[in-house]
C-alpha cells in the first residue's frame, strides 16, 4: 500500500516537471497532501493511537486544505496569469527530476542496508526534497519558489515517516502551524512585491548584492 502511494507521489513530482500551469501546481500540492497523510497512516498502522490520528488529520487539514486555499487566494489576489510565463521550455527538467528520483531510491536502498529505515518512504522523501530544491533553483517565478518549498516540506514529513521518527504530536502540530505562518508571511510579502514589481511577481530580486 505504501508503495502505491509513494509511486503516486513520485508521479506527482514528475508531473511537476512538465507542467507550467499554476492550477496544476496547486492540485499537485493537494494531491501530495493526501498521499503524504495516507503514507503516514499506513506506516504507523501497527501502533495506531489517538496522537497519530491527530497528526494525520492535521496533515490533511494543513497541507491539503488550508495551504492550497491560501495559495489560490494569493493567485487570485495578484491576478496572476494561468501559466508560468517566466519558464522557457526546458526538456531536460523532466530528465533531471527523474534522475533525482531514481538516485534517491538507490541511495535510500543503500541506507537501508545499514540502518533500520523504511526504504520506499525514505527514498521518496529524499526525492521530494531534492525535487523541491530543483524547482526552486530552476524557476524564476516566486510562487514556484514557494511551491518548491512546500514540496520540500512534504518530503521532510515523509522523511520523518521513513526513519520511523515518532515525534510527539505537540511538536508535529507546532511544525504545521509554523509552516502555515510561514506561507502566510510569504503571501503577504508576495502581495507587497506585486506593488513594487508590477510585471510578473518579482523575478528580479537582484538589487541587493555586493
Amino acid at each position, binding site marked *: 500500500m505504501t*508503495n502505491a502511494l509513494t*509511486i503516486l507521489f*513520485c508521479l506527482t513530482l514528475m508531473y511537476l516537471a512538465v507542467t507550467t500551469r499554476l492550477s496544476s501546481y496547486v492540485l499537485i500540492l493537494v494531491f501530495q497532501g493526501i498521499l503524504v497523510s495516507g503514507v503516514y497512516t499506513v506506516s504507523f498502522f501497527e501502533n495506531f493511537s489517538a496522537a497519530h490520528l491527530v497528526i494525520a488529520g492535521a496533515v490533511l487539514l494543513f497541507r491539503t486544505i488550508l495551504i492550497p486555499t491560501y495559495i489560490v487566494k494569493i493567485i487570485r489576489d495578484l491576478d496572476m496569469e494561468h501559466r508560468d510565463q517566466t519558464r522557457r521550455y526546458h526538456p531536460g527538467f*523532466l530528465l533531471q527530476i*527523474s534522475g533525482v*528520483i*531514481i538516485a534517491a*531510491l538507490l541511495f535510500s536502498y543503500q541506507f537501508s542496508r545499514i540502518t533500520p529505515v523504511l*526504504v*520506499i518512504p525514505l527514498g521518496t522523501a529524499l526525492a521530494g526534497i531534492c525535487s523541491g530544491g530543483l524547482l526552486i533553483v530552476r524557476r524564476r517565478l516566486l510562487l514556484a519558489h514557494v511551491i518548491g518549498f512546500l514540496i520540500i516540506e512534504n518530503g521532510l514529513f515523509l522523511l520523518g515517516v521513513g526513519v520511523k521518527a515518532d515525534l510527539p504530536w505537540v511538536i508535529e502540530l507546532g511544525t504545521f502551524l509554523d509552516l502555515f505562518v510561514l506561507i502566510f508571511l510569504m503571501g503577504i510579502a508576495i502581495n507587497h512585491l506585486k506593488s513594487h514589481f508590477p510585471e510578473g511577481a518579482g523575478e528580479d530580486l537582484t538589487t541587493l548584492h555586493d
Partner: protein
Amino acid sequence: MVTFSSNPFSWLGFVGLAAGAPLLTGIVNKLKARLSGRLGASVLQPYFDLVRLARKETIYSRSSGFITRLAPVIVWNTTAFAVLLLPVGLFPGPISFDGDIILLAYLLGLGRFLQILAALDVASSFEGMGASREARFAVFAEPIFFFTIGSLALVTGRFSLESIVAGIMWDKPLFPIFIIVSSISIFFLMITECSRMPVDDPNTHLELTMIHEVMILDASGFDLMLYQHAASLKLLLYSLLVTSLLNPFGWLNPAAGVALVVVVLAVLAACLAAIETLMARFRLVLVPQFLLYATVIGVLNILIFTFSH
C-alpha cells in the same frame, strides 16, 4: 529454439485476431462519436472501408520509386508477424521462443522504418515532415517498451512473451501494483504508436498537424487498405499486450478469462475514446516529455518493486 505451436487453436486464433482488428477500431470510433453526441458510423464501418479500398485502383506518382510499391506489403507483413508472436488466451502464440519480445519490438520498428522511407520516397514535403516527426517520437517511445516488458521479464525470470505472461502471479502482494503501473506505461506507448490523441489526431484534415496520416497521404487503393489494416492490427496488438499483462487465463477459468479480455478491451476502447473527446492534442514539443514520463514511470516501477523486497 523457435517453437511453432502445434495447437490448431493458436493459428485459428491468429486468423480471428487479424479478422477482428478493424472491429476494435470501429468500436473506438463509435464510442468517440457517442461521447460527442453524434450517432456515428456503424462499428462495422472499417470493414466497409477496407472492402471499398480493395476494389479501387492503386495509383503511383511518377516521382515515387520502388519503395512506395514495396512498403505497404512489408508493413502489413511485419505487423501480422508481430501479432503471430502474441499469446492468445490459454494458448501460446503461433510462434514463440526465448527473446521474442525483442523480435516483436523490432518487427514493428521495421514496419515503421519502411513507412518512413515510403513517406520520403513520395517526394512531397508533407510526408517528409510527418516522417521526421514519426522518427523522433519513435526514439522516445522505444525505451518504454523495453523498460516495461523488460522489467517484467526480469521479475518473472522468463524471456519469451507467452512464458512471461504465464509467469505473472497475482497472489504475490506486490505484483498487482507493478502490473497496473506497467499497464499505464504501455497505454501511453499505445497512444503514441497507434497515433491516437493526445499525440496525434486521427481525424484531422490539416496536413501540418498530422503525424501518421500524412505519411500515407498519397497511398491509394490496395496499398491504402494494407496500411489501414496494419494500423488496426497494431491497435489490437497493443491492447492485447495490456490485457495479457493481466494474465486473465492464469488465475481464472477460461470462460471468465475470455470475459475479462473482452471487458479490458472495452475499457481500453472507452479510455481512448474519452481521451480523444476530452483532450486537445499536445504541442509537438511536449510529446517527448510525455514519452519520457512513461519511461520514467517504468523505471521507477522496477526500482520500487526491487527495493520493497
